[in-house]
């Protein structure tokens, strides 16, 4: 019994060591969203000037079906990397994707969209970034999954990858459509 007691410090050290080691796996940039399971903020953003075909984006458009809201900018390099993934999600995998164009010059946004294609059902231009602050955006790109009642159910910070889509977004979309 007393022998075991001598092992205690070693075991404690082992436990702390494992906890810290697992901590390395976590991305310190991935801050949990305060808005999960809360209704999406109320907002009404105009269309990107010169691209009014789809109209702007407002909270009213986020109810009815499960949708993905993607915050992007033409100056954001990872946004270009995730663009094919978003395009596939919208055109082939049947998820309605809305865009929030974050602190972008309208002409840059238009050039970017015509060059890379426009997979968004509608885009709201957030030129001063205020609406994005309401969403808790702290780095583009960010993507939010909205359920049929307009509540935020999932947030991904950083570029969407095929893996994130297959393993997290699509199962969640399926689940939310049933619920």
């Amino acid at each position: 019994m007393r022998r075991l007691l001598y092992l205690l410090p070693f075991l404690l050290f082992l436990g702390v060591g494992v906890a810290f080691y697992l901590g390395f796996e976590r991305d310190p940039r991935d801050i949990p969203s305060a808005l999960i399971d809360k209704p999406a903020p109320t907002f009404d953003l105009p269309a990107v000037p010169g691209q009014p075909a789809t109209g702007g984006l407002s909270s009213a458009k986020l109810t009815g079906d499960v949708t993905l809201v993607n915050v992007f900018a033409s100056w954001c390099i990872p946004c270009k990397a995730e663009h094919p993934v978003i395009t596939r999600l919208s055109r082939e995998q049947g998820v309605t994707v809305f865009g929030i164009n974050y602190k972008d010059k309208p002409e840059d946004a238009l050039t970017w969209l015509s060059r890379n294609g426009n997979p968004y059902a509608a885009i709201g231009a957030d030129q001063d970034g205020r609406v994005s602050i309401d969403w808790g955006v702290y780095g583009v790109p960010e993507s939010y999954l909205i359920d049929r009642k307009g509540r935020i159910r999932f947030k991904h910070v950083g570029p969407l990858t095929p893996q994130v889509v297959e393993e997290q977004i699509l199962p969640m979309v399926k689940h939310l459509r049933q619920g």
Partner: protein
Amino acid sequence: MKRLLLAALLALSTLAPALAVQPDEVLPDPALETRARAISQELRCLVCQNQSIDDSNAPLARDLRLLVRDRLKAGDSDDKVMEYVTDRYGDYVLLRPPFKATTLVLWVGPFAVLLLGAAGTFLFLRGRRGVAAGADTAPLSADERRRLDALLRKDD
């Protein structure tokens, strides 16, 4: 010589902390501005993470500084402004985490470890004092006592 002095002065000037708050952000009302600075120093910049928004040059930090000032101008109390920001970014945005159920380990943990250590030390020391007092050692037999006396006498 003059050039050297100028160079030295220039080098010294870089030692002063760069002010992130731009002149165009400063509120005309000094009382409000003081409150805004105090609040900004409590809020974490989410881009650089270990700076407050008051220190950070990140564009988002500037947007948040402007937001804090807008809320103050709209007549919000300091707590209301803090609440406005934490509603959107969570407790993570606070440089001083609040005391509540989810942060209990953070606040109480070190004291708990200290208490555990103190209890352990106390038990250990009490056990050792028992040994020193000879509580669990048998008294010397007559034979042992004779040998001990013989050994002690040898030194004289």
